[in-house]
């Protein structure tokens, strides 16, 4: 029992650098913006009372609690304003400006859209919502953020330049959520007879609005569609376990990238695939992060884009407007 408690404590509470969480925040922030950019074209049709679903109908049909600001803002113009607010909150969250406040605002706004019309949501939207919920509890602005730069500028202590240590429990919850996604999808599929006899992919290829032109001709190859049926199950169950261990993580990530790129391309799922690949970022350790950064620096360090990206923090710390924003008026030390 003591050992179990010690392992629990180490897993959820042993301090670690906040940089991995910072990278993950940026990825989820960008993908939230991308997901709602795809929504923008049809925002009026999907989320206003002039669209395909009225608030009264949702209220009448679902006998459950649902919270959405869009129950009070129903006009097409109002919905567009709310979408603009969501983009503003999304940008603040991504760059880590007032991160705690922006993460709460972003979750509230995303949930408002999702609850208003869940008939148009797919699994990618659910991943975004569950991750943003957990980000509200995470110290997501502790690294790689405008907040972190402002803290550096305000603090006279040189130690403020070191990467901040945080308790990783919220990040661990995000990891567990990812494993639950893979595990439950395999469990649900394992109850279907078409997955037992290997012909599930035959029908998946045959659903014409889920397949790019020509994919349906793979229905001619029983060995191929059977192999792909079992390979999908294997990949999903393998990822949910192998992603936890450092030695097997690269294989799990490679398997996941292959699986999701395939699904993304041939089933036209533009958000879910790339989001699931992004969720692997929260499993990275500080050493893996350092190793990746070293590799990237060696490979792209001489490029203009990389140099520009590395100069941004220094330039921000030196900029008078940023120093005013951070509440510091004395000259800054070296960035």
């Amino acid at each position, binding site marked *: 029992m003591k050992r179990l408690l010690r392992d629990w404590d180490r897993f959820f509470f042993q301090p670690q650098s906040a940089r991995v969480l910072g990278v993950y925040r940026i990825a989820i922030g960008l993908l939230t913006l991308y997901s709602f950019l795809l929504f923008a074209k049809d925002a009026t049709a999907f989320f206003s009372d002039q669209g395909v679903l009225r608030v009264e109908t949702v209220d009448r049909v679902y006998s459950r609690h649902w919270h959405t600001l869009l129950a009070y803002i129903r006009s097409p113009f109002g919905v567009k304003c709310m979408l603009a607010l969501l983009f503003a909150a999304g940008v603040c969250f991504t760059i880590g400006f007032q991160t705690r406040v922006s993460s709460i605002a972003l979750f509230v706004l995303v949930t408002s859209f999702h*609850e208003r019309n869940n008939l148009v949501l797919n699994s990618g939207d659910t991943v975004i919502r569950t991750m943003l919920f957990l980000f509200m509890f995470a*110290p997501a602005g502790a690294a790689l953020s405008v907040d972190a730069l402002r803290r550096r500028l305000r603090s006279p202590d040189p*130690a403020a330049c070191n990467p901040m240590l945080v308790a990783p429990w919220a990040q661990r919850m995000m990891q567990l959520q990812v494993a639950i996604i893979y595990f439950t999808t395999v469990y649900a*599929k394992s109850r279907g007879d078409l997955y037992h006899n290997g012909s599930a992919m035959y029908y998946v290829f045959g659903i014409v609005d889920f397949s790019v032109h020509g994919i349906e001709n793979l229905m001619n190859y029983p060995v191929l569609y059977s192999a792909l049926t079992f390979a999908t199950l294997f990949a999903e169950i393998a990822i949910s376990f192998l992603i936890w261990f450092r030695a097997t993580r690269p294989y799990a990530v490679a398997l996941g990238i292959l699986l999701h790129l395939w699904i993304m391309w041939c089933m036209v799922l533009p958000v879910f695939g790339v989001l699931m690949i992004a969720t692997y970022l929260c499993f990275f350790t500080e050493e893996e992060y350092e190793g990746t950064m070293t590799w990237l620096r060696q490979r792209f360090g001489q490029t203009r884009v990389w140099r520009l990206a590395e100069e941004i923090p220094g330039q921000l710390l030196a900029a008078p407007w940023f120093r005013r924003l951070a509440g510091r008026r004395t000259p800054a030390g070296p960035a």
Partner: protein
Amino acid sequence: MEASPNGVCSRRRKILISLFIIFHFSCIIAWVLPKPSPIKTWLLSLSLPLPGHSRDAGEASSQWKIKSRPIIAEYIHHTAQWQDWAMFAPNPVQTNQYLGAHVIYERGNWKEYTLPRLDQMNWVEAWLEKRYRKLKNRLIDEKRPEFFEDLARWIARQQSESGNRVTRVSVFMYNSPIPRHDRKDLGDPHTAAWLNYSEILREKAVYSPTLVLDYFVKPGDLE
């Protein structure tokens, strides 16, 4: 829960956070377990007296009151953590479907309307319009007349012309089963003819219509 410079949590905070982690994932796991499952049914039936909005039979509007409520469903719904990861599970659908409507105008003319169909689009168009695929699938799965009424009103607003309003919208669901060709039935599996499924499922697919709603447009619907 604020980040501290050394990231160390106090014992009391650790206990509170641990309780939250256990509770959160107990709720999530109970929620995502596939139906039917006795464990899921039991977990979802666990109730406690909790405050909240509710409407009892005979009451005109919902009111705040303390009553016995299922803990897990309350937590999941209030935190918007509802989730379902059973895509193509337990089995993928075995029918191609789309939604369309016959739109009838006050001058007596009519036209056919279909919700955007991804199978008739190129990859980039499908990438942008894929939400309509989800909308179509959910409308067909849920089979709620209230949803189809809202869809009919929306189609009427979209299709109305100046001086020629839409008066009636008949919503149809079109079905075309995916044929199952067992290779053994086609002869020797190694020499059996190669079937052109693009033609079978796209160009030459036969869809049978089913009327799901015949809606007569009311004066206020087009505003």
